[in-house]
């Protein structure tokens, strides 16, 4: 009884790898998918032709499971069949691209695949936000002679700031729960290099039968979620109240 499970958890090297990975992954994954999503949303917002076709292309990965995405990308990362072979066949015969099988860089393979899967989601939310911006203030900025870039940076993006926060919170939440993607893409390897908290919990509980320590790890996941979500929901409630008073 007591806190033993938690002590042994934090003393475990594999758990340390897992939560270091979580921080690294969350950072790059959230920033990456938001950056790509915002870029795509702004481009689509320039009255492009066949808008729904572009949107359909960027969003379809969300309909597919992480298992499918992870499996397919693991083939693409595989040096003897995927991208490396493609480039070598094109004539660059000593090109090397073994991201997913390198201990040091495998985590970046997970990040790239994660961004690929979910930047469409950020795009959809950003696009909805861009469309909700009052057309008059955009016109006013244009009449004042502001360039498109400046209009976005100074007028439109500040208006949709709350969406940035919402997207970030949702993505961090996905990152903390990341399990399927890693299970299909790298299975936590090579070695233990892409272990994530969710993978660790599963391994401890159902592969090794260390239920106590596994439960402790699951509780740490919950704590991580709470650290992100509790302040965010308080902020949302606060903002709604304030808007209620002003309106």
């Amino acid at each position, binding site marked *: 009884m007591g806190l033993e499970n938690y002590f042994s958890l934090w003393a475990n090297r594999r758990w340390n790898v897992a939560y270091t990975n979580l921080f690294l992954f969350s950072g790059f994954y959230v920033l990456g998918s938001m950056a*790509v999503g915002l*870029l*795509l949303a702004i*481009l*689509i917002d*320039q009255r*492009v032709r066949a808008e729904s076709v*572009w*949107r*359909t*292309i*960027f*969003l*379809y*990965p*969300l*309909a*597919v*499971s992480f*298992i*499918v995405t992870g*499996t*397919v*990308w*693991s*083939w*693409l990362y595989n040096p003897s*069949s*995927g*991208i490396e*072979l*493609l480039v070598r*066949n094109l004539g660059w015969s000593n090109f090397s691209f073994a991201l997913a099988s390198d201990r040091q860089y495998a985590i970046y393979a997970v990040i790239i695949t994660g961004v*690929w899967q979910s930047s*469409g*989601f950020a795009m*959809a*939310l950003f696009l*909805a936000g861009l469309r909700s911006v009052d057309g008059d203030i955009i016109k006013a900025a244009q009449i004042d002679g502001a360039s498109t870039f400046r209009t976005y940076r100074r007028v439109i993006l500040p208006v949709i700031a709350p969406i940035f926060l*919402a*997207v970030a919170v*949702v993505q961090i*939440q996905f990152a903390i*729960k990341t*399990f399927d993607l890693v*299970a*299909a893409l790298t*299975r936590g390897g090579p070695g233990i290099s892409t272990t994530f908290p*969710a993978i660790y*919990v*599963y391994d401890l*509980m*159902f592969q090794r039968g260390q*239920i106590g320590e596994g*439960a402790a790890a*699951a509780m740490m*996941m*919950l704590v991580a*979620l709470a650290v992100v*979500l509790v302040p965010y929901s308080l902020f949302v409630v606060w903002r709604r109240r304030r808007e209620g008073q002003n309106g």
Partner: protein
Amino acid sequence: MADLALAQALDPEAAVAGRRRLMARVLIYGILGLFALVYIVPLLVVVMNSFRDQPEIARNGLISLPQSFGLDAWWSAWDSYCIGGNCEGMKRYFFNSLWMTIPATLISTMLGAMNGYVLSKWRFRGSEILFTCMLLGVFMPGQISLMPWAFILGKLGLSNSVVGLVVVHCVQGLSFTTLFCRNYYISVPDDLIKAARIDGAGFWRIFWKIILPLSPPILIVTVIWQFTGIWNEYLFGVVFTSGSQQPITAALVALTAGGTTASAYDVMSAAVLIGALPPLLVYFLGGKYFVRGLTQGAIK
């Protein structure tokens, strides 16, 4: 056209502006096209490889234009490929997933609609607190509920069965379905309900005659959300079932993990597509509703 060219020739400033606008257009479509390529290529690679011969894939790699065409990989993946010593292909797992997803989707949507109805139109002391507690389920990681579910499924005698997964997904999905429906029903005017009550309509009558006929938009969103979510779910599938009871996601991982057959890319591509097709179909048919669910689930 001639007039325009003439006007531009006469007005160098307009010509410069026109050229700049053209450049901007080229840039916009160029970047969009590049990203579209990155998004499309993985799907294209899998589709093409499912029709290519394995020897050709081994020779030219996964990413190359097909030089052969055949449907053998599809038949093999569906009917006869061996997964963990069981040589029946994907069909069993496909139907496991189907018989898991359809009932779980319908039941959790129905219960969510009733929950939403009660929580928005028949409020009682503590109903807001109850709703907040249910919302926690939206954020709870699946790992937290693994042990309790294992215990409950064991007690019910539903361990390692598709029915057990249906039960798990019905309950796990309740948070989302309740959230969707409650937020939708809250915009149904209370006066409508009051008028119906004065006319003598009761709890069920109001639900069937007033609430449900107003519900199709939100029910479609909820059904699509639940269907794709449950079909694509992996954690519960792999923890609570094994062997022939597994849903297709778990079978796919088992299939591609099989060391000896790891290079049968043609069959594995077809198998992956079999696993991805139902949610993709739902997405292409109901894309608008899919996106609506996505944004609602995220922002609320």
